[in-house]
């Protein structure tokens, strides 16, 4: 016989309001987290997919692929740096693309590469590309020839790959020469020479960042992969903003649980007095409060998750909401921690219940 669980089972009405409120808060937390994940994953896929330890930018690029230019001489210096094993050039250009049979332009990122990212084969022939699967949602099919940029540069799709978008745009993975050609024709203001790339993806061992930047005499700035992901435009700001909102929502959860169980404890002071009088310890009563808060949080999370899944399915695809297993786990843990901390607010009140209060007015 477990008193707290029996109370939940036999008097569920007492816990309905708190469960419903926490359920909606769980849905909100999942929505916020899902939006954050959707934005983050959609913005960073092309970089996360890289099989690289370090990315090398030109020193003046301020950690931006689009502003960076690496010359053949700089590349040679990087290749000679201690610990460097593999080096591949990278280049991105953001353009609109005409998909056969589609009226609207699709936003794409044409990405030139040498070291194949995860799921992407070796660089294809010039004029061919492997597209992010988002482009399928936009109407592209295998074998389609897309006309890219204002000059309508043709790229034929020979394959698709998941989770490799760049700044929420579908990446089309092409050879470096195709990228240069597309870049130079459609963005003549940002044209690059035959041996120039925007950045280098580097694999190796040891302190690559220091060894590379030393080898280039400070002409380059190297970032680790996690740093490169966060340096993409807006990614860190989105992450920080959403995390702040998520933490604030968790604080609301804590306040709701705290308030609810404080009121419940207040209602139970008489009963707690009787239970203490007949031998219940403060610890036992307090653990009961925490246990109830945890169960309420678990039920609220389950209900909130179902609601979030239904609501997500009903949302238009243009909203970058992505519910990942990791987000469910982190939201669940967040709710549990907030529930435990919130219910702990009642500890002082439970501790102060005088068993003598069970008898008359003595205390």
């Amino acid at each position, binding site marked *: 016989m477990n008193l707290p669980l*029996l109370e939940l089972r*036999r008097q569920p009405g007492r816990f309905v309001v708190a469960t419903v409120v926490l359920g909606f808060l769980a849905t909100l937390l999942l929505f916020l987290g899902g939006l954050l994940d959707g934005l983050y994953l959609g913005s960073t896929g092309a970089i996360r997919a890289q099989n690289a330890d370090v990315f090398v930018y030109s020193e003046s690029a301020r950690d931006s692929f689009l502003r960076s230019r690496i010359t053949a001489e700089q590349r040679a210096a990087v290749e000679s740096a201690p610990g460097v094993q593999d080096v591949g050039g990278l280049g991105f250009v953001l353009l609109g693309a005409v998909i056969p049979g589609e009226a609207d332009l699709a936003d794409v990122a044409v990405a030139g590469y040498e070291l194949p990212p995860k799921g992407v084969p070796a660089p294809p022939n010039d004029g061919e590309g492997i597209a992010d699967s988002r482009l399928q949602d936009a109407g592209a099919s295998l074998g389609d020839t897309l006309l890219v940029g204002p000059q309508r540069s043709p790229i034929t799709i020979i394959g698709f790959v998941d989770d490799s978008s760049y700044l929420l745009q579908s990446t089309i993975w092409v050879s470096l020469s195709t990228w240069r050609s597309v870049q130079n024709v459609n963005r003549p203001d940002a044209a690059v020479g035959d041996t120039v790339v925007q950045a280098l993806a580097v694999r190796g061992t040891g302190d690559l960042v220091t060894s590379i930047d030393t080898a280039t005499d400070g002409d380059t700035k190297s970032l680790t992969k996690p740093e490169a992901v966060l340096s993409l435009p807006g990614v860190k700001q989105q992450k920080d903003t959403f995390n702040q909102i998520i933490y604030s929502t968790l604080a609301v959860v804590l306040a709701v649980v705290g308030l609810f169980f404080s009121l419940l404890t207040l209602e139970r002071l008489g009963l707690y*007095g*009787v239970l203490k*009088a*007949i031998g219940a310890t403060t610890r036992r009563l307090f653990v009961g409060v925490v246990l109830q808060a945890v169960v309420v949080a678990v039920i609220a999370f389950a209900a909130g998750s179902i609601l979030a899944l239904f609501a997500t399915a009903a949302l238009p695809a243009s909203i970058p909401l992505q519910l990942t297993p990791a987000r469910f786990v982190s939201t669940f843990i967040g709710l549990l921690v907030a529930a435990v901390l919130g219910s702990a607010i009642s500890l002082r009140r439970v501790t102060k219940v005088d068993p003598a209060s069970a*008898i008359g007015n003595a205390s």
Partner: protein
Amino acid sequence: MTVLDMRDVRKVYRSGDADIVALDHATVQVEHGEIVALLGPSGSGKTTLLSIAGGLLTPTEGAVVVGGHDISEYDAKQLTEFRRENVGFVFQSVNLVPFLTAEENLLVVDELGGGKGGKAAITRARQLLDELGLGHRLKNLPGQLSGGERQRVAIGRALFNNPKLVLFDEPTSALDTKIGAQVMELIQSEMKARDTAAIIVTHDTRMTTYADRTVHIVDGRLDADAVGADH
């Protein structure tokens, strides 16, 4: 054999700059199987005396020995354990756990003592409730029981652990005269049948007829003439 031995017990509460003496050099003994009625007006100290006898309060001065345990210097944790194993309580108002059946309200005592509500505990609870005339009410919640039945369940709970001493705090105050008398008769018969000592706090002189002895308390002092007068 003496079950409760309180000697020269004082209880003083601090209120601002003033000391309020709730119990003033109280000395009382209760023997096995003896039922003592504690009679006094409101604020006379009878509740304080009951609380100290049951290990709910510690005395400011004096010695309290219950069932051979000198609890005068026990800390809160020791008192909790002491109460769980040695004293039964029947309270006046908030009493039973509202979401537990009659049977489960008795099993609470077993659970608080670390039991798992096993077969032996269930048998004991059912047997007690049967003896108290509630064999047909085992699965009823307190809200489905009458006032008299609720007090009978509370008596069963108080007796569950075979305590040496049972303390009753105005057990009939919420009952009408007829039901109150029935409950008192039940208390008397159950205590005598088990040879269990009991103190019954009441302000209803009619209830003293069910006691072996009546102790009067006024302004925290036990009435010297009354102590042992009916014994």
